[in-house]
């Protein structure tokens, strides 16, 4: 009997998206009240954000080809606007040449990661001109290797945001030198995890003021281990994840001296893992300590609750966030945490496979969740799609978080295969509007022509790229061109934009020798006179293999009221700003609330626009 059990254990160790239904059944005429014109417009080409992903496929169906690319948004030159980092693929098989590639590489050769500098200008009349310049060469980023995703954070607290690039192969920590260049410090920092990683997140889990790093690892896979998988009908296809074993994810503790130590074991995160694809960090039980949620492919997800002593406890199952309400593990890919119902806690949205429907786990405020994917409409509305990159995004600035997903099947779509599409798995993106009652409606058709494009969407990074007060999106498509979705309607409503900075170091002469860094994990509350509160969090993680704008943008609807702002910093201290101007970006510095308030008052008397608090 025992032997039977061992063998059993050994064994077990072993379409076209018809979106007509989704469109017709859940679209609402009410959404047109947002006004005429396209809500999002693709401006990638027009702005010079010219990047085409190359996945290196040659017909061998190597697993990694089906998974990238992620995208990163970061202000690497500290000029106040978001630059863009794209990861690139390579030929995986050393015996092949570019001539063997089923879809040939485009753009500068050889294919490599690329960094684009945002050269946004704002004319005196407020006209914005958005252009990007490819600064890959100047940046000295090596950018070679098979890229999967990006995480961003200032790991050495020098005021310059750094990059962590996940790869099929050793990951890279790229230190921003502050002069437009980066240095590869992967080895000396001990973060060169050789596993196949997809998503990663910078997070100060021990509240010591230094950003630690959680790296989500996927499968134990190598070209030599590659298995030839087929569909049911016997045609070659990429393998499902269950064919390979999962790789344990890692958490690296930042020692503050430029190095990290692998704290996976001591943090008690080592024992439970799955094929990780998405990571989001948030304080799910509102105890002031950041927790970690990991979305796994075809395996139960993990909810790592911070025990405030350097360790974590996975409560996903007992908390109702590990499986669907039916008890099934789905193919979780992208994930994001956000307070969609404005009740003061962060809820989880996870993208899934065709036929599964995306999941919405609603937080009761204590870190316990209820699966409301169906009730919210997000599940039924997404059934024909395989979702990857996603975010809670208040695209219309009405103060309620909406959902955007980028989609692309992981198996061949019959109709596309029939017409000999070289990569027959593309699908449209989707946009869901929050109806403020726990439900969402699909508004994809109203969102603009870019939402009609069918592409193999994977990564998506979200942020205010043109600094005009609404959320834009950069999309990474597998074997396709990147898209820059510029939001054309969000700033028709009022908003408040905050950059939350802390950790500034003062030199001997009293001058700042570091401008401080984005305080990832800081919790922001916008307090209004009617007693309502909007809670958001500074973060760069979430989505799929991508890094978001670390700033916080909160939609205020048609309210012109200047709200109070309360910030709980990652170290647990709370500060409040009495009046923060709306409809502009403002920097709030940790430890300077009163000074900021005084400066603001002086600036207002002088008729100036306050810029920094």
């Amino acid at each position, binding site marked *: 009997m025992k032997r039977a059990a061992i063998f059993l254990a050994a064994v077990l160790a072993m379409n076209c998206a018809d979106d007509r239904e989704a469109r017709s059944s859940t679209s609402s005429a009410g959404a047109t009240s947002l006004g005429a014109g396209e809500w999002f417009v693709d401006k990638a080409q027009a702005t010079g954000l010219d990047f085409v992903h190359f996945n290196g496929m040659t017909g061998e169906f190597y697993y990694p080809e089906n998974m990238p690319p992620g995208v990163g948004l970061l202000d690497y030159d500290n000029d106040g606007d978001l630059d863009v980092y794209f990861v690139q693929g390579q030929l995986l098989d050393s015996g092949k040449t570019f001539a063997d590639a089923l879809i040939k590489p485009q753009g500068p050769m050889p294919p490599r990661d690329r960094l684009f500098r945002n050269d946004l200008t704002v004319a005196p009349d407020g006209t914005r001109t958005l252009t990007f310049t490819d600064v890959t060469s100047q940046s000295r980023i090596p950018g070679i290797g098979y890229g999967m995703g990006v995480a961003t954070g200032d790991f050495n607290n020098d005021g310059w945001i750094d990059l962590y690039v996940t790869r099929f192969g050793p990951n890279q920590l790229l230190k921003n030198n502050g002069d437009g260049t980066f240095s590869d410090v992967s080895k000396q920092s001990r973060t060169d995890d050789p596993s196949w990683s997809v998503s990663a997140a910078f997070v100060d889990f021990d509240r010591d003021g230094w950003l630690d790093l959680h790296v989500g690892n996927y499968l134990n896979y190598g070209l030599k281990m590659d298995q030839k998988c087929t569909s*049911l009908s016997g045609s070659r296809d990429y393998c499902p994840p269950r064919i390979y074993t999962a790789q344990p994810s890692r958490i690296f503790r930042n020692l503050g001296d430029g190095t990290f130590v692998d704290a996976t074991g001591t943090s008690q995160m080592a024992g439970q893992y799955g094929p990780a694809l998405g990571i989001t960090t948030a304080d799910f039980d509102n105890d002031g300590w950041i927790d970690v949620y990991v979305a796994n492919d075809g395996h139960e997800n993990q909810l790592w609750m911070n025990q405030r002593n350097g360790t974590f406890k996975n409560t996903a199952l*007992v908390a109702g966030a590990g499986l669907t309400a039916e008890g099934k593990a789905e193919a979780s890919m992208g994930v994001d945490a956000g307070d969609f119902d404005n009740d003061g806690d962060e809820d989880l949205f996870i993208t899934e496979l065709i036929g599964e429907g995306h999941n919405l786990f609603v937080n009761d405020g204590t870190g316990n969740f209820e699966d409301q994917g169906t009730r919210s409409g997000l599940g039924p509305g997404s059934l024909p799609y395989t979702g990857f990159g996603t975010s809670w995004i208040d695209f219309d600035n009405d103060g309620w978080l909406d959902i955007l997903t980028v989609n692309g099947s992981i198996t061949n779509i019959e109709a596309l295969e029939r017409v000999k599409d070289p990569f027959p798995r593309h699908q449209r993106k989707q946009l869901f509007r929050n109806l403020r009652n726990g439900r969402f409606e699909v508004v994809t058709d109203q969102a603009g022509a870019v939402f009609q494009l069918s592409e193999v969407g994977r990564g998506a990074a979200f942020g205010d790229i043109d600094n005009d007060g609404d959320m834009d999106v950069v999309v990474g498509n597998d074997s396709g061109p990147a898209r820059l979705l510029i939001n054309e309607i969000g700033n028709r409503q009022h908003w408040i934009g905050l950059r939350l900075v802390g950790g500034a170091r003062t030199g001997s002469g009293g001058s700042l020798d570091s401008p401080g860094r984005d305080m990832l994990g800081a919790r922001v509350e916008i307090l209004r006179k009617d007693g309502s509160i909007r809670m958001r969090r500074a973060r760069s993680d979430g989505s799929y293999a991508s890094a978001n704008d670390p700033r916080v943008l909160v939609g205020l609807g048609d309210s012109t009221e200047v709200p109070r702002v309360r910030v709980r910093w990652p170290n647990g201290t709370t500060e409040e700003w009495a009046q923060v101007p709306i409809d502009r970006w403002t920097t709030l510095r940790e430890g300077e609330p009163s000074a900021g308030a005084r400066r603001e008052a002086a600036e207002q008397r002088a008729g100036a626009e306050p810029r920094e608090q």
Partner: protein
Amino acid sequence: MAVLREGVVLGAWLLLIAIGVSACGDGDRQRGASSFELRPILLPNLSVAAKTVQVQVHDRHAALTATLENNASTDVARGEAYGELGKLLLGGEYFDSAENCFLNAKALMPSELRWPYYLGHVYRKKGNAAKSAEEFEQVLRLNPDHEATLYWLAEMYLTLGRTESAEALFSKSLTLGLRSPAALYGMGRIALSRKNYQEAVKLFEEALSLDPPASVLHYPLATAYRGLGLIQQAEEHLRRRGDVNVTTPDPLMQEVNGLLETALAYEERGLRSFETGQWAEAAAYFRKGVELEPENPSVRHKLGTALALMGDNGGAEEQFQIVVRQSPTFAKAHYSLGLLMESSGRRQRAIEEFSLAVRHDSNYVDAHMRLAELLLYTGQARPALAQYERAIGIDPRQPRPRYGYAMALVRLGRYREARDWLNDAIRLHPDQPGFVHALARVLVAAPDDAVRDGPRAMTMVQELLRGPQTLELGETMAMTLAELGQYGDAVALQRKVLSAAMQEGRQDLVATLTTNLQRYERQQPCRVPWIIEPEFLSSEPS
């Protein structure tokens, strides 16, 4: 030459269907009995499908074409021909092509429930729950008691958030006769969504009693217990959760699932048999898969596993050997071979196979564990330590590698480290009395004077004696008494333990107990904590 000619003909035919030209193309555009305009059948791109599937589709398509070209054929005959092709395409997950076939079949045979039923599944799999529900509703109009449709329509209603409609159908299922676990599962989920936890517990428990292998039930049941605040019960069910679905009688879909002639299709059939413990049936399916794809390591490995479970170790080994010859990096086959070698006493070969398993899959915890235990048993404690360490690194929750690591330290005579290690293990695994027991042995029998601590060991053993009393614990108590100089008591207890061991036929203990008894009689303490046997190592620490 004949093969070449056949290949050319097949290739030409494939070219035709690959460009979307159906043999029944224009001929299909005729009006059926219900004045529905029949849809052209655009076959999928089969050029990349398995040859067997190409032939299967070709045959059914040819049958359809012949039926359509026969002016004497009835609507029923034509409907059947469309439906048969549709079933095959559905089995191959060619949902678009299957959809048109079933739509035509439905138009030609409006009173036949199979076609809307299959259409319901086509739309379900395409993620179109609303259209799926419409088709299933049509089936129920034709047969209001169709059991599988009652279930699937209710599921679609749940997907669409139409809870009341789903509840009515599940309720009807339950009134039709036997209590259906699937309907109880559905009703339980509805109760759960309404936060009626008491009712949900009742329904899930009943479903589980009717369908015990359906491990998927444990998770929602745990959620319901959590809702009632019964955390202990919730955690118990969380531990038992799995992904075996609730049984749903569905002969129509079963027929479709049995149509396709590919290795993967047979592998999936085999796995379904596996889930219900039908090893022979599973082996038969896997064997068919192997016949279709002799170089598919996954299906051949499963065949070997099924054979081993049937007791045919020779047959199993043969299959595993073929797998590793064809796919040398297939870690699971090396592991399975290792198990077979170990069970037949070929320890060195087993070590080699386990080593290959961990080389090709460095995260293979079970393989690291088996390798470590075998290394330790064969006197290779140092390399065993490394394997235990790796297993702990991968999954630190497991007590067994931590226990094995301590045993390896003892084997190496590193008693101080063993003591410290066991102290840590007790802290990390407070629910595992086996670590306390092991530490007590080290404290009374380690040859290192600086390690032994008889009084502390006595406290620990007395605490352990409040729990289950085993021969091993009695032996440890006797060791402790001897260490404390209470030889008379030690001799008396050791004799009782020895007698009990002989009565129970525990020959593995008798020799050691006898040796130690002689020591105590000579007023000498024990200085050998364990004689390490494989059975001892492979048992849980407690």
